[in-house]
């Protein structure tokens, strides 16, 4: 069986002034669908275009324009659902969510309140080797994104860009299964990882392509277990929703700050009011978005411009057949096939590009050695230069070449590091570099013996000391390595030094 076993992490406990509290967290993650065109128009989704240039008249809410659904977006939503082991609804429908805002020219957002395309699923959120939280997904629905308002270009005006208006979003709604700020960030990270494997969302949080609304409430230890038994929310505290966060760090900070705010109110004898709040990272506080409260009356109704979305089981099966290996399976397979630790497997599968790179290096070679080199040398070196794996100057073939040279005993581990640096900076074929620069390891015992004899002859005092203290053999090994420019095979040197010293 490929499954790695795991235990659930302990919930985070916050000590209040009077007693202990636990957190209950649920997230709504908005993930931009990685489609070329928008959900209901043929305008491009490309980021960073001239303002209002990726806009069709449908997106601008011009009278008489009708939405036509992008089948590619439907396929990507289904794929995401399958990746989260979720139920795919063959019939779903679109509703209008009505509100007024300058960046929403239609006056409503087309969404799926009553019949989402994806139903219940689950995500395993890894916290540490052997520790993971299973988070239930309630639903995923397709909806339109709004435009972008810019408030700092003019003191009296807001500027509106509709390029993002109508771009397809997947809203992924979790159950309140998350029990701490770190888990919440790890959950978003896991969704991001899975969607990047699937190619359904690029996960770029800086560009706002992945954002989260976080629902936070606090309860006394033991209350959550009662909720779990009964699924009765009355055992939990009143929640507040913190809107629109696009950084893992802010998600964690906002949850912590909001939980402490609620605890202070409750311990003071007050009650938490259910409301929408905004996190201010500069002040380190959440504050009420009062203006949102009235707008909460969205007057949803089925969108009269769109028939229900009916998809066939064959369509779903076709997408299921093309699913790539997902992070959990890949990680388990790396542990099994390459004999690496779960930690290393986690590092190598964190991003699909890392995993692909590693497998190219490891193919037909020593997997464990390949894992060490990719994680320690390559990732370390790339990090130093702030480069991504895609920008690596060393190709998998080149790194594989270095590993082959180590495996054959042509170069020592130390020389390999020098060789790696040369390949990294100058490029070239590792085997050729070893030949042309005379880096080949000396395995010729005659040459090593000569070097050992020379060192022994030059250092009679050290020889005497070594006879009393055998640990000093290491000094001789070091001298020999130095004399041979690090090219002597260390195992052979150890053996010969010991023999010659009579240890």
């Amino acid at each position, binding site marked *: 069986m490929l499954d790695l076993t795991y235990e659930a992490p302990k919930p985070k406990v916050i000590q209040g002034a009077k007693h202990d509290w636990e957190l209950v967290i649920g997230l709504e993650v908005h993930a931009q669908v990685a489609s070329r065109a928008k959900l209901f128009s*043929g305008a491009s989704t490309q980021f960073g275009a*001239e303002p209002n240039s990726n806009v069709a008249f*449908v997106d601008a809410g011009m009278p008489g324009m009708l939405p*036509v659904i992008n*089948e590619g977006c439907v396929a990507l939503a289904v794929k995401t659902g399958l990746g989260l082991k979720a139920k795919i609804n063959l019939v779903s429908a679109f509703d209008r969510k009505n509100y007024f805002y300058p960046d929403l020219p239609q006056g409503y957002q087309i969404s799926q309140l009553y019949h989402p395309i994806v139903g219940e699923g689950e995500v395993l959120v890894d916290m540490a080797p052997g520790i993971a939280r299973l988070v239930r997904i309630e639903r995923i629905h397709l909806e339109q994104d709004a435009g972008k308002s810019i408030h700092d270009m003019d003191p009296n005006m807001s500027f509106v860009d509709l390029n993002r208006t109508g771009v397809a979003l997947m809203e992924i709604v979790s159950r309140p299964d998350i029990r701490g700020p770190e888990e919440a960030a790890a959950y978003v990270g896991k969704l991001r990882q899975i969607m990047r494997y699937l190619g359904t969302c690029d996960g770029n949080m800086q560009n706002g392509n992945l954002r989260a609304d976080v629902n936070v409430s606090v309860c006394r230890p033991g209350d959550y277990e009662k909720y779990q038994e009964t699924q009765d929310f009355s055992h939990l505290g009143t929640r507040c929703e913190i809107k629109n966060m696009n950084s893992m760090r802010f998600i964690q900070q906002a949850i912590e700050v909001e939980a402490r705010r609620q605890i202070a109110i409750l311990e003071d004898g007050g009650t938490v009011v259910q409301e929408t709040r905004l996190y201010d990272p500069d002040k380190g506080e959440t504050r009420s978005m009062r203006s949102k409260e009235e707008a909460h009356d969205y007057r949803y109704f089925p969108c009269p411009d769109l028939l229900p979305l009916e998809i066939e089981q064959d369509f779903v099966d076709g997408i299921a057949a093309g699913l790539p290996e997902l992070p959990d399976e890949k990680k388990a397979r790396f542990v099994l096939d390459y004999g690496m630790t779960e930690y290393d497997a986690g590092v190598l599968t964190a991003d699909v590009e890392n995993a692909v790179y590693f497998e190219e290096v490891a193919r037909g070679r020593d997997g464990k050695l390949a894992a060490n080199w990719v994680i320690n040398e390559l990732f370390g070196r790339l990090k130093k230069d702030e480069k991504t794996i895609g920008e690596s100057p060393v190709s998998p073939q080149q790194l594989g070449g270095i590993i082959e040279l180590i495996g054959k005993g042509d170069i020592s581990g130390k020389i390999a590091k020098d060789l790696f640096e040369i390949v990294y900076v100058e490029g070239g074929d590792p085997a050729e570099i070893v030949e042309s620069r005379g880096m080949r390891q000396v395995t010729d015992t005659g040459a090593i013996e000569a070097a050992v004899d020379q060192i022994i002859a030059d250092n009679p005092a050290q020889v005497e000391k070594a006879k009393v203290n055998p640990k000093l053999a290491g000094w001789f090994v070091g001298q020999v390595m130095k004399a041979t420019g690090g090219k002597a095979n260390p195992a052979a040197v150890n053996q010969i030094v010991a023999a010659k010293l009579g240890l």
Partner: protein
Amino acid sequence: MSIDTETAARVAKLARIKVEPADLPALASEFNTILGFIEQLNEVDVEGVEPMTGVTPMRLKRREDVVTDGNQQKAVLANAPDAREGFFAVPKVVE
């Protein structure tokens, strides 16, 4: 269900339709007439009947995921009361 003038005022506000206070009673009364008709429809037993979504047997029309539209900034902004540097310019809205 009965709509009073207060509810009528709220619905008008949510829809951003300006209604003079003097007109609210008449508006509320119209709402009530409409809702009364719907209540009448609610008397029909539709248990087990699929909701009808159209009168012709049609499948939702789809497009391929191909960029076919856009690059018409001027046309998009043509009706804007105010536009600057390619943006719609609107009275300041800040949270």
